[in-house]
């Protein structure tokens, strides 16, 4: 397979392909790949479905793409909606719109703006998300930066610096957004079980345990147990049931 020459693949309109080994793959319109797809670049505009695993150096999609297997790539850019049944692996993942992964995500840098759902773990060196976020496993990143919109849920967060804030938007877009976004969009909240790191700054979060060296609890939090090593600061409008300084 390796020595086979790569040729471009173009699907325009409504068509399908058995998949295979390509240089550039372009799907415009309604395309379906029945099998594994291995290409240098994949660009999708419109609706596409890949019934197999996807391997592409660069994967860009505008519109909606669904993959029944796993995705391995270097650079993933999503404007629209992507869902994968398998895991997602890339150096850079940029999402504007929605991404749903039924397995785990492993990335160098992950920036999500919009809906992000991960059924298992999500690992990255730098992770930032603006929008409704659901991670059913562990969110593990060196830097975690969450801007909350609507109800966010993460089972566990682990990392070095973790900051969780409520997402905001300019006044004009707020009015625009209120027309077609859920009513609680601007009052984001996070529910988590455990948040562990070195430096943690959280707002509007309900969690069972928060553990770190330095902890700043902003407004709107409800934490059962805080364990800190060096410093701890709690906002007046937050509830912390138990706080403990550990060695």
């Amino acid at each position, binding site marked *: 397979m390796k020595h086979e020459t790569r040729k471009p693949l173009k699907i325009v309109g409504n068509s399908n392909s058995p998949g295979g080994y390509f240089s550039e793959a372009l799907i415009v319109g309604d395309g379906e790949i029945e099998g594994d797809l291995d290409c240098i670049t994949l660009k999708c505009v419109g609706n596409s479905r890949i019934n197999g695993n996807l391997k592409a150096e660069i994967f860009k999609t505008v519109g909606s793409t669904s993959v029944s297997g796993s995705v391995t790539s270097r650079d993933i850019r999503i404007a629209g909606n992507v869902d994968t049944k398998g895991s997602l692996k890339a150096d850079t993942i940029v999402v504007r719109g929605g991404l749903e992964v039924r397995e785990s995500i492993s990335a160098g840098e992950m920036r999500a703006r919009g809906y992000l759902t991960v059924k298992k773990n999500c*690992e990255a*060196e730098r992770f930032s998300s603006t929008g409704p976020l659901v991670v059913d496993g562990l969110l*593990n*990143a*060196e830097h975690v930066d969450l801007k909350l919109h609507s109800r966010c849920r993460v089972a566990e967060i*682990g*990392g*070095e*610096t973790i900051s969780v804030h409520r997402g905001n938007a300019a006044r004009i877009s707020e009015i625009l957004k209120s027309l077609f976004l859920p009513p609680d969009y601007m009052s984001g909240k996070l529910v988590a*079980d455990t948040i*562990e*790191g*070195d430096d943690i700054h959280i707002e509007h979060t309900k969690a*069972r*345990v928060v*553990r*770190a*060296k330095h902890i700043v609890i902003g407004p709107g939090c409800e934490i059962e*147990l805080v*364990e800190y090593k060096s410093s701890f600061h709690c906002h007046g409008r937050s509830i912390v049931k138990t706080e403990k300084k*550990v*060695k």
Partner: protein
Amino acid sequence: MLVLSRYSDASNNNELRSNLAIDNVTVFCYINAEVIDMENELISKKDLLELTGISYGQLYRWKRKLLIPEEWFVRKSTFTGQETFFPRDRILDRIAKIKNMKEDASLDELADILSPTPTDLQVSRSALADGKIVSSAALELYESVSGKGDAFAFGDVLFVYLLDKMLQSGNISGEEGKILLSTLKEHFASFEGQHCDVIFLRKLGVSTCLLVTAPQQIYFDDATRVAGRLSVTSSIEELKTKLVNGGL
């Protein structure tokens, strides 16, 4: 006749009973697939950090870099809720290793050293022949079985290394070493990076060798002697460390 058995999945069976027939000698063995030695002694995440002086950030970074395998994170319910525990001895050993080596190697290199999968390292025969990594006796025995070559892939070096360890321990003879080699050659690849142990058995003067996934408890009938048991995973680690330190 040599029958080699491999049990990785004990689907729905707590106990697998099987017999390995070697010539006319039958060896009975029981594999307890459910009890894993991780049960032995666990350490909570909090205690671990306190004991080793590392931070959550470091722990999570090492986990991300695959320096600490996912299966060591054992979740258990406690009276405060679900907490994470680790197999005590293994995690302490691993963290000591990481702390020791991280001065000299990058985290990615460390991950490579510590992973149970063989690397794509190549070692020349002359480098191997100087006796620092494996004894010349083991090397010669290996070459008598699989022929001479100028360069060794990591997998081949590993086999020589395992053979050498078994021979050095005095538990097996040279002839038996050949059984070991042929077993490894034929079946080691099918473990695909899973942790495994190689076990050498003797019963009524007949010897055989088997590979099992680790950690696994395995029992044999009374007349069977376990001549030697080696953890392939830790041997891979040792060998990689030796190769890296030896500048290969």
